[in-house]
């Protein structure tokens, strides 16, 4: 790891100010991706601004149908939240299967979506749930937020403060994890709203990060069952191919995982 300067932020304003002070400063949330990347010298931020002590970025609240999750809330906290389990159980299931227990004790929802790893779990969940990403300056819809592989709509120095989700009528997540890393080889999150509309988001498979599967959304809007997906064919031309799986294999996984997610949603 190259040398860096550590700063501990006490508030959102403090964090934004501290990050603007460094040449190539970065926010440090749980650090479960950033620190390993720095250790490999693939990232070399001049300064790190630690967000773990910003009280306004922590905690979970459910008000009516609105779930608000502070950006510095860990995966373990989301996985074990009785409030989220009651309103949006698919999200608890998703959080409970990120990495391993130790990673889940540190890694945060804000850190995960800011990184927008093409095989991370949260981008699929938040895109399918039509979440709103609240930053220090504005609110961004998930459709606008995830702009491509490792890319988001965040401006330089902009900080995610919280994520807001309207509780769906039903939701489910299924992933086929890479056996070594536990990242999604393919993961599919399915959410059905009270008005019957359905959103299906796929992670791990797209060559440009998380994406929605329109054909599946239509099929599930008229019949929310796993068998409704039988007739859907998944085009593999925009899917990733690597040593772990070809794009054709991933295309098949998209369908299998989507069916499992619908079944899990009940």
């Amino acid at each position, binding site marked *: 790891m190259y*040398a860096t*300067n550590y700063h501990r932020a006490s508030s959102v304003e403090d964090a934004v100010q501290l990050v603007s002070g460094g040449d190539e400063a970065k926010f440090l949330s749980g650090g479960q991706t950033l620190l*390993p990347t720095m250790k*490999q010298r693939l990232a070399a931020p001049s300064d790190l601004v630690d967000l773990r002590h910003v009280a306004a970025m922590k905690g979970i609240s459910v008000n009516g149908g609105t779930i608000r999750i502070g950006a510095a809330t860990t995966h373990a906290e989301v996985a074990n939240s009785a409030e989220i389990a009651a309103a949006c159980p698919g999200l608890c299931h998703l959080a409970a299967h990120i990495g391993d*227990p*130790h990673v889940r004790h540190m890694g945060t929802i804000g850190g995960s979506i800011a990184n927008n790893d093409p095989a991370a779990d949260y981008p699929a969940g938040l895109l399918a749930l039509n979440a709103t990403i609240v930053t220090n300056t504005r609110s961004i819809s998930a459709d606008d937020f995830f702009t491509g592989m490792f890319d988001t709509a965040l401006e330089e120095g902009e900080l995610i403060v919280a994520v807001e989700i309207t509780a769906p009528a039903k939701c489910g997540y299924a992933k086929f994890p890479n056996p070594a890393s536990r990242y999604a080889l393919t993961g599919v999150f399915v959410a059905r709203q009270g008005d019957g509309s359905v959103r299906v988001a796929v992670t791990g498979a797209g060559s440009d990060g998380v994406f929605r599967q329109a054909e599946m959304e239509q099929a599930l809007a008229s019949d929310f069952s796993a068998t409704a997906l039988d007739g859907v064919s998944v085009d593999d031309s925009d899917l990733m191919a690597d040593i772990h799986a070809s794009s054709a294999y991933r295309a098949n996984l998209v369908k299998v995982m989507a069916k499992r997610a619908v079944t899990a949603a009940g």
Partner: protein
Amino acid sequence: MVSVSMTVNGRTVSGQCEDRTLLVQFIRENLGLTGTHVGCDTSQCGACVVHVDGKAVKSCTMLAAQADGSEVLTIEGLASGGELHPVQAAFRANHGLQCGFCTPGMIMSAVDMINRHGGKLDEKTVRAELEGNICRCTGYHNIVKAILDAASTMGDGTRVAAQ
């Protein structure tokens, strides 16, 4: 350089280190507590697991500066006087190790697991929860046996805090 101060195994310690110093380096090199191991250094193997503020974390994936002000429990802090912690005793009784390199991390993970699940711990949960700990000798079988044995000995609510 940063000044860090934390409670390690019940003892207040402080020291100077580089901002980039990992918690595991601080524990091993500044404090001389070499029971916490570095296996893969890529956040996968879990040999470096310690508890920070009561939660199991990979100390190779946390800066010492991040742990400033925290309570840290390492493998050296588990035994009470001359008596092994029940999880350590169960690993010995069940042959839950061969070369022993992964053992400190396995035991710290096991204690964390038992703290969270108590007597409800079953084999499936233990195997799933060992996701972040790699052992290249045992095939995990006796590790799982040891953890289940310790969980039943400790039962519900027997949270073993930092000494």
